């Protein structure tokens, strides 16, 4: 029988913790080279030597204070869940700072194993760590490893199993913090032990230490026993005062100094280094990539290169997918009888889901490019270079990451973006960032942009995308400035941040990373979007026109037909409805064959007595005149026939328009028209925008559904983009206004939920209202100014 136990992975950001987690469990997970991406609790399983080991990935932290969400999460997990063993991942090439967390874990007393990662990098930098010495000095097992190549993972598992068999216990390590503090610690520890009010989750000495450090969470816990709590508080205050008087420091500072003193003592004996503070390759790269003039220039080139690259590589696969879905529609239409079911599958399912899936290659390559930026460490440099600017807008250099993940380089997602704001310590900066994050161009807005750009700005695709990216940054930043100088006024927080060394991203890491995000997008298409496509299709189909209304359209068609049949011009060609049906059929067939000459046309057309009429009609429709080899007669009839056809199409359109207006969606969209008319939006765009609240991808599919239902035009069976391009209601200005509105209006449902999770319902509701107002005003300015500046637009 397998024995079960739980281990927790802890470690600094950039210590390779995620890589170790993946190597242990084989789990698919986001790996990045940026401080604090791992903010969620991730679990995986591994079986080793008859043990079933559950691995919990704790957030990457530098410390165990109560001042950041990650640290609180990590600390609470350790004391509440009591894992059987904690594996602390320590970067050997950056040992001192990584041991700072290890020392705090020892203070807390958790059963600990140290995984000494990246020994290869350390060696290359001239740092040789004697892991046995380190182990004996710290009093915990130390396993050297290179997680990137999987070296040492088995050894780690062996040690983990051994420790589990041994039944390692909690055992706080006593570290000296100087006479004054040690004495106070002893006193407080006694007071805590005397009380029977306190729970035993935390070791008493650790509690005492945190109390002296001024940890607000622990101080609050200690006040639960009013009597002892007061005594403890008294000691803490006295110690603080005494230390301030004698050493001009707060106890917290002294404690940190002693921890580092202890670490320096350990590493002096356990580490041999050849050179101190030498410029390594990463530093040399930084000399170029963050230099004054070249740095920003390279940054812009890299970011711009990403669009060009993404559009260039995805062009062909996107075209293939479009062809595939077009073909699928054709097949389904021919297999299923006309009616509600065919309409549901073609207009509801294939149009809806296909429109979204068609952009998968684009999104996949965009995610791939972002993954390279994150995993290589360049993203942190962007934050470093941008901080001076972001600070002016009341944000933090770290906000850049949330903004980029949400789509700052186009093609992100606001949901992880909102989550990434957890790395911001100041609540005001954090809320401001998460409120403006939905303005960025997420992957779901891309298809909308791409479709409209293809329709109205086909020659400037990459340039247009770049421009839209700059616009979204502009809106996000000024909105942040506005928020930070009105409802969220306050001080800026420290920018202290690590610049992780440049690392070549592993292909596996990149693939896992980009595939995960793409898969989320596809899953969304298969679930939320499929569901919404069907609901919206139903909203756009029901209730249908009343029988009376349908009959009135039938009457109009019959009248047209009768008028045609009665026309003297048609006398020699078409006498009854049967003739007319044949003519319609043959003419459609002839048009599809692009009007070949008599000899090349199929015999059923060429041999028909109607052929001269058909050919004449085709010439006229193409805008030509009769030529010498043609008789006058057929042209008069052809002209009359074309007239009839045009009127029939007109009636069809009118019927579909009336039908759509009659549906639930039409009614909602129409009632919104009163508000959206100044923007140039009609009920069809309104329906699409309402659907976009579910997920922005729905906008495209809804527009597709609205337009393929609303206009049956055999000449224009091309994509939605082609259709809008030729639609009289649309022009470049409306296309652009629609893009801007899509960029700014309500965050999608999933984002609203994450905003609520990271803040409150109040802020989530504020976010919806605020964004709607901003979107409306900005779109209004654009559309009115556009019309005023370019009247012919």
């Amino acid at each position, binding site marked *: 029988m397998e024995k079960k136990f739980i281990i927790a992975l802890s470690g600094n950001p950039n210590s390779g913790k995620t890589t170790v987690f993946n190597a242990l469990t084989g789990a698919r997970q986001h790996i990045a080279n940026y401080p604090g991406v791992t903010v969620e609790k991730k679990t995986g399983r591994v079986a080793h030597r008859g043990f079933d080991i559950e691995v919990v990935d704790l957030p990457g932290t530098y410390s165990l204070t109560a001042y950041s969400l990650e640290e609180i999460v990590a600390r609470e997990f350790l004391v509440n869940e009591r894992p059987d063993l904690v594996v602390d991942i320590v970067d050997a090439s*950056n040992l*001192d*700072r990584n041991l700072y967390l290890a020392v705090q874990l020892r203070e807390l007393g958790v059963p600990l194993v140290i995984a000494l990662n990246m020994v290869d990098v350390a060696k290359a930098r001239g740092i040789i760590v004697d892991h046995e010495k380190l182990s004996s000095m710290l009093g915990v097992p130390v396993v050297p490893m290179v997680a990137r190549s999987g070296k040492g993972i088995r050894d780690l598992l062996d040690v983990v199993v051994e420790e589990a068999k041994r039944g390692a216990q909690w055992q706080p390590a006593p570290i000296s913090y100087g006479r004054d503090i040690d004495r106070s610690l002893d006193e407080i520890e006694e007071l805590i032990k005397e009380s029977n009010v306190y729970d035993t989750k935390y070791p008493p000495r650790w509690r005492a230490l945190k109390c002296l450090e001024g940890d607000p969470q622990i101080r609050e816990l200690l006040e639960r026993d009013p009597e002892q709590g007061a005594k403890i508080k008294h000691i803490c205050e006295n110690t603080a005062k005494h230390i301030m008087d004698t050493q001009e420091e707060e106890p917290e*500072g002294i404690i940190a*100094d002693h921890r580092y003193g202890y670490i320096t003592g350990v590493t002096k004996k356990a580490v041999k280094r050849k050179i101190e503070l030498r410029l390594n390759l990463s530093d040399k790269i930084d000399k170029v990539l963050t230099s004054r003039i070249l740095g920003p220039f390279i940054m812009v080139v890299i970011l711009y290169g990403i669009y060009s690259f993404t559009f260039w590589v995805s062009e062909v696969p996107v075209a293939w997918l479009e062809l595939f879905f077009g073909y699928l529609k054709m097949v389904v239409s021919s297999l299923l009888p006309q009616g509600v079911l065919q309409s549901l599958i073609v207009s509801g399912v294939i149009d809806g889901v296909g429109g979204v899936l068609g952009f998968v290659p684009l999104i996949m390559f965009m995610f791939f490019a972002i993954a390279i930026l994150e995993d290589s460490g360049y993203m942190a440099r962007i934050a*470093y270079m941008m*901080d*001076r600017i972001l600070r002016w807008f009341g944000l933090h250099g770290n906000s850049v990451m949330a903004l980029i993940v949400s789509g700052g380089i186009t093609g992100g997602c606001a949901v992880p973006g909102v989550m990434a704001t957890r790395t911001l310590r100041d609540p005001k900066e954090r809320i401001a960032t998460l409120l403006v994050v939905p303005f960025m161009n997420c992957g779901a807005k891309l298809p909308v942009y791409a479709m409209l750009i293809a329709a109205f700005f086909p020659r400037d695709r990459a340039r247009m995308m770049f421009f839209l990216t700059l616009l979204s940054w502009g809106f996000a930043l000024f909105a942040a400035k506005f928020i930070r100088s009105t409802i969220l006024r306050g001080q800026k927080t*420290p*920018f202290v941040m690590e610049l992780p060394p440049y690392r070549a991203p592993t292909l596996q890491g990149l693939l896992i990373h980009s595939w995960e995000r793409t898969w989320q997008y596809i899953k969304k298409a298969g679930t939320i979007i499929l569901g919404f496509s069907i609901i919206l299709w139903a909203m756009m189909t029901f209730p249908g026109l009343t029988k009376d209304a349908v009959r009135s359209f039938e009457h109009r068609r019959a009248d047209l037909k009768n008028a045609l049949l009665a026309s003297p011009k048609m006398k020699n060609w078409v006498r009854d409805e049967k003739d007319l049906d044949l003519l319609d059929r043959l003419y459609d067939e002839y048009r599809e064959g692009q009007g070949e000459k008599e000899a090349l046309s199929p015999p059923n057309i060429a041999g028909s007595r109607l052929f001269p009429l058909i050919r004449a009609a085709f010439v006229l429709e193409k805008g030509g005149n009769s030529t010498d080899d043609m008789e006058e007669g057929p042209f008069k009839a052809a002209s009359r026939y074309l007239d009839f056809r045009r009127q029939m199409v007109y009636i069809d359109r009118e019927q579909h328009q009336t039908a759509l207006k009659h549906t639930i969606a039409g009614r909602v969209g129409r009632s919104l028209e009163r508000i959206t008319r100044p923007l140039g939006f009609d009920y069809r765009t309104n329906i699409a925008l309402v659907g976009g609240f579910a997920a922005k991808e729905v906008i495209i599919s809804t527009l597709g559904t609205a337009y393929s239902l609303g206009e049956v035009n055999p000449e224009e069976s091309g994509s939605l983009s082609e259709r809008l391009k030729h639609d009289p209601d649309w022009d470049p200005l409306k296309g652009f206004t629609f893009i801007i509105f899509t960029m700014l209006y309500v965050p999608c449902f999933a984002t609203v939920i994450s905003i609520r999770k990271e803040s409150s319902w109040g802020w989530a509701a504020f976010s919806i209202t605020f964004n709607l107002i901003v979107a409306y005003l900005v779109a209004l300015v654009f559309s009115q100014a556009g019309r005023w500046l370019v009247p012919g637009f």
Partner: protein
Amino acid sequence: MKRVIRMRDMSDDQKGVIKKISAAGDMGRRVREMGLVPGTLIQIQGRAPLKDPVAVKIRDFILTLRNNEADHILVEVDGPDL
């Protein structure tokens, strides 16, 4: 000769030993847990294109701070008194 200056006033590539951290609260805590404690050897790595923040090499990694934060860190460097 040794003299003590603010980290902000150090020139690029200049080395020094931290003498005192005068920052308290969140800033002091953050700086300390990253290893900026008295007695630590540091070297200015460079500055962002807009001259702020500053990147400092410390213990085997690079840390960035804003200039107004670097003001709270006093460093002992080589050189004549001014």
